[in-house]
């Protein structure tokens, strides 16, 4: 599985792959069938992944007469490596070399609409679709050849872009495709390649997007440079919720280097040929007076503030089994999380061009299709005349400023038809205006019986919505500023099984009695939306901290206590493998040193992930040194093992940053975390000394979303290790040095 491919293997097609007799689910379609698809409604029930919405093969794969294959995915590369994984799947299932394959990612005019690239769905939705579409195409190519040669299809095999009969007769895919329509629906009865015949799936393939990123190639939308392109900046108050008071727009045109001011309603953009004068202009305009209409932002005790935001009760789970017996002991705890920032290193950027009546927007949005709808509505254009093309941006981690800056760019570009406009937010605008990850409160109450088993469980979570992504014009800042009555959609409470603030609030443990309640908060004093893993970070932090508190109350080993309550075999496997690799319980940590453990299955649908951490707390400063983090992950069928490791490593570090270092500051008027000096994130001196990721491969099983799987377990393992080191439990994020020092 870890074997590196030789260059020849990567490019050429490897050994012969015979075509198997057809039959329902011959080797399993391997689809993430239980996941919620994010795109439009399902039109072909039963087909796996996004084939359910887009069953026609040529929306996924086209074979040109020269044998070149183009693969389409509606998902976007966010640095998670999806392009590489899709390429591996397609090339392997099609039996072609990588040099024959071109991948097209999210583009409203060419790729299938797969909704958002979010929720760790890309492999489940698109990976599954592409793999099965490729299997279908390979089979159709063989069938066509069989007809041509008048031989049974089962006597044929494929190799490196050719169909062959084993007697020296071959036919290139390109030649076959010339007479073959792929505009046909995918069939359910066409099997995927047998596992033993895989050439690329499960192997290490270096990420295809990395070389350009290492050598100064055009890798990001920020790097785009089109002929005649103008630079643009948008003029706003210092943070979301604020408005400039009567800005003198006419005077702005006189600022040096400002070639044009685009203004409508409260929307103001400055356009110019050079960037630096625009940066200076923004700084001069930073002195403009501003106000915050509406209610002041509530400040003070976090739990009181959050719980006071007009909660609406939504029952999530009510499992009652009277036979469980009586609780002899109750434990209760409250956990909180502050508002968090996505904080991509590069501020949001988009390039837009209005030409021949078509508005094209190059954007790093996670959802080109929903964005197109919202922008078309804002511009009053028919959606088909608006095209959104995904180009990589900096980071992502959820709904940041990407969509808003795309709308800003579109408004600016509309004023200068024929000229591309590159709109870039300033660092302070990104910090000030991006939607935040919501603050949350979780209260847990658990009942233990006489033998130390959990027999009652009550989980209450308070949270705003976790999605205010653009579903219509009013969700975009620019549209709101136009003053044409565009208003945001009312906040949505995402339903289970995935959930929003309640994501992962249902413990996977075998609990006879369990009640989970979501208090959906309707007031949003700070702009919020999706941040990586949504409510799972908070709920898993709380549940897994609480499991340790219960284990402590029963004087049990935390891992043994978890296993005692865990029936799911795959969950048990990652727990046991992590404990084993970490040598859990076999070493006694020294003074102010502690071991922490946590587990979750993301969304209870995605990847299984268990993490153990070994931390040391420095006595005088309270600083935490993470000596070692060990994770074991079951993502189902592994396509690119290093891609999974990269995501888990990154998730662990990012979660340590969130959990240990971050909180958005605000006062009654606005956010006050306006740059990195006042919103510090993890730096090198605080990253672990070692991180190991162990992969459990399940070839042939459905892909399980992995991109967000580490956020919750890493947070709780970190908190549990600190509690073990100091003997005191911290329940309020962030677990800062001072909190650790003073509570010790």
């Amino acid at each position, binding site marked *: 599985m870890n074997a590196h491919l030789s260059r020849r293997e990567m490019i050429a097609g490897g050994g012969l792959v015979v075509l198997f007799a057809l039959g329902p689910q011959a080797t399993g379609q391997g689809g993430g069938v239980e996941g919620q698809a994010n795109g439009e409604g399902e039109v072909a029930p039963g087909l796996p992944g996004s084939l359910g919405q887009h069953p026609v093969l040529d929306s996924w794969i086209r074979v040109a007469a020269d044998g070149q294959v183009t693969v389409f995915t509606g998902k976007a590369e966010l640095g998670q490596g999806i392009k590489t994984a899709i390429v591996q799947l397609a090339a392997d299932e099609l039996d072609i070399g990588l040099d024959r394959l071109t991948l097209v990612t999210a583009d409203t005019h060419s790729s299938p609409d797969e909704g958002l690239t979010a929720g760790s769905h890309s492999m489940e939705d698109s990976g599954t679709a592409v793999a099965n579409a490729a299997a279908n195409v390979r089979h159709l190519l063989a069938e066509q050849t069989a007809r041509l040669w008048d031989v049974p299809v089962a006597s044929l095999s494929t190799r490196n872009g050719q169909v062959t009969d084993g007697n020296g007769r071959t036919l290139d895919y390109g030649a076959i495709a010339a007479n073959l329509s792929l505009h046909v629906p995918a069939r359910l009865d066409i099997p995927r390649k047998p596992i033993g015949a895989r050439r690329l799936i499960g192997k290490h393939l270096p990420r295809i997007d990395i070389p350009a990123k290492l050598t100064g190639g055009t890798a990001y939308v920020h790097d785009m440079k089109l002929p005649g392109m103008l630079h643009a900046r948008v003029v706003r108050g210092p943070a979301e919720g604020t408005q400039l008071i009567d800005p003198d727009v006419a005077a702005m045109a006189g600022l040096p280097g400002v070639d044009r001011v685009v203004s409508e309603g409260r929307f103001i953009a400055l356009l110019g040929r050079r960037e630096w004068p625009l*940066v200076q202009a923004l700084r001069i305009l*930073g002195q403009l007076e501003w106000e915050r209409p509406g209610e002041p932002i509530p400040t003070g005790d976090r739990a009181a503030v959050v719980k006071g935001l007009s909660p609406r009760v939504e029952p999530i789970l009510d499992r009652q089994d009277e036979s469980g017996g009586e609780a002899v002991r109750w434990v209760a705890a409250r956990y909180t999380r502050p508002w968090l920032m996505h904080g991509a290193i590069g501020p949001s950027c988009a390039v837009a061009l209005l030409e021949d009546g078509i508005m094209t927007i190059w954007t790093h949005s996670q959802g080109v299709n929903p964005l197109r709808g919202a922008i078309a509505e804002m511009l009053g254009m028919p959606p088909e005349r608006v095209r959104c093309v995904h180009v990589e941006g900096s980071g992502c981690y959820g709904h940041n400023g990407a969509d808003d800056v795309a709308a800003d760019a579109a408004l600016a570009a509309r004023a200068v038809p024929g000229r591309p406009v590159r709109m870039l937010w300033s660092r302070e605008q990104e910090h000030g205006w991006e939607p935040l990850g919501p603050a949350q409160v979780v209260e847990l109450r658990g009942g233990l019986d006489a033998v130390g088993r959990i027999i009652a469980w009550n989980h209450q979570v308070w949270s705003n919505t976790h999605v205010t992504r653009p579903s219509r014009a009013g969700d975009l800042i620019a549209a709101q500023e136009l003053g044409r009555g565009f208003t945001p959609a009312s906040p949505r409470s995402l339903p289970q099984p995935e959930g929003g603030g309640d994501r992962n609030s249902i413990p996977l443990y075998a609990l006879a009695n369990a009640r989970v309640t979501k208090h959906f908060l309707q007031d949003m004093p700070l702009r919020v939306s999706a941040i990586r893993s949504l409510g799972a970070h908070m709920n898993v932090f709380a549940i897994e901290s609480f499991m340790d508190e219960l284990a402590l109350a029963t004087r049990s080993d935390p891992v043994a206590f978890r296993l005692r309550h865990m029936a799911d075999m795959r969950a048990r496997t990652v727990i046991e493998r992590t404990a084993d690799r970490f040598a859990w319980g076999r070493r006694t940590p020294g003074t102010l040193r502690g071991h922490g453990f946590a587990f979750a299955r993301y969304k209870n649908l995605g990847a299984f992930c268990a993490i153990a951490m070994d931390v040391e707390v420095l006595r*005088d400063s309270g600083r935490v040194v993470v000596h070692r983090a060990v994770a074991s992950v079951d993502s189902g069928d592994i396509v690119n093992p290093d891609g999974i490791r990269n995501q888990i490593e990154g998730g662990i570090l990012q979660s340590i940053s969130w959990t240990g270092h971050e909180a958005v500051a605000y006062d009654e008027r606005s956010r006050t975390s*306006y740059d990195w000096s*006042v919103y*510090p994130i993890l730096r090198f001196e605080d990253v672990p000394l070692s991180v190991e990721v162990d992969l459990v491969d399940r070839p042939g099983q459905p892909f399980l979303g992995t991109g967000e799987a580490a956020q919750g377990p890493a947070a709780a393992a970190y908190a549990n290790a600190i509690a073990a080191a100091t003997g005191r439990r911290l329940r309020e994020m962030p677990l800062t040095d001072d909190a650790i020092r003073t509570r010790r």
Partner: protein
Amino acid sequence: MLFGRDAEQRYNRKSFLRMKVLRSGWLRWLVIVLALLLFAFLLFLVWAHRPPIAEITPPPRTAFAAAEIRRGENLARIGNCVSCHQSAHGRPFAGGYGVQSPFGTIYGTNITPDAQTGIGRWSLEAFTRSMREGVSRDGRHLYPAFPYTHYTLVSDADLRALYAYFMTRDPVRAEAPVNELPLPLKFRPFIAGWKLLFFEPDRFRRDPDQSAEWNRGAYLGEGLAHCSACHSPRNWLGAEQRSEAYNGGWSAGWYAPPLNETSPAVRAWTARRLQSYLRTGLSVHHAAAAGPMGPVTHNLARADEADVRALSSYYAWWMRDAPASNREPPLADRSETARRAHPAGAALFAGACATCHEPGATMMALGGRPALPLGSPLHERHPHDTIQIILNGLQPPVDEAGPFMPAYRDILTDRQVAQLVAYLRTRYGSGPEWPDLVEEVTEARENSAP
């Protein structure tokens, strides 16, 4: 044991033998003078001698009451002990920080309770003697870079609490580096001579005419906090000039501005503003704590609030007659004059500094960071603080979040820093142009190399 008793006797015998030969002439008088000098030197050695204090078995953590340790922690923060007793990548109190003196580098020692390399075998008596008299447990005199000239004022009870605190830290095995001093200064008995001239063991005496808070502030400020160690000038032998107390001094290449009526601040240092500065590392009416003052505020932010209030009112009292206490002048912004006088500096400022320091910058408009003319550096007699901040930047002094400035050490050349400093002085500062700026920058760069 070169100067042990045996050696003395041997030397004296030889001298007697030679007396006969030198019975006459001026040489005789020379010998007598030399002998007298030698005798005086021997007397000095006897006088300078301090006996070792017996080692103890390192006491267990449980030997100290929790409340005592907590009190000690507060005092150690007020004393800013960790600044000299921790190296850049070392553990707290394990020593290793090099104090730069005009005579050479003296390294903070390991004051963790490690038995071999720290103070694990020190009794309370030994600890007390070191703090009060500047003598190590083994009897060696300690260099006055260790400010026992101030610690001598500390009360018995506070020394006990500090002892309890240090003896309950995690022991760290770490040998402090050898001091880098010229040979004669390595001879420790000389320190006793220095002490004879400049040091008198003393105890704090309260001023009955002042408030309890003032007295608390004076006790802490003159004692453990040893503020005047940096903020007062020193004589050629490195002793604080008491007659010029708080008239401004030096610390690690930074100028520590006056804390008396000559304070260059353009806004009054009221007790309240000082309190906010010392607790948060930032006074919105002045500037952020920079250089060696950063760690001071880091510690004071975690010290007892009432103690910091006492320090604040004591030093506000010291600065009660400073110019800004009577009249706060309007803030200077002579941008045109400065641009004409220093065009190169103006261009550097526009590209390197304006993004954060002009009034429309978010950190100014929203973050309320003080404008450049509010800080003391541009009004000081010496350019060093301005140069140091530009070269080395500023890390948030108190928390992970806070005032930050990148270091321009590798961005600007010495000449460019000098151009920028000259521009800043003209645009925002007061006082005459600073001379020899390029040389000052070169020297500051060398002395503050990371």
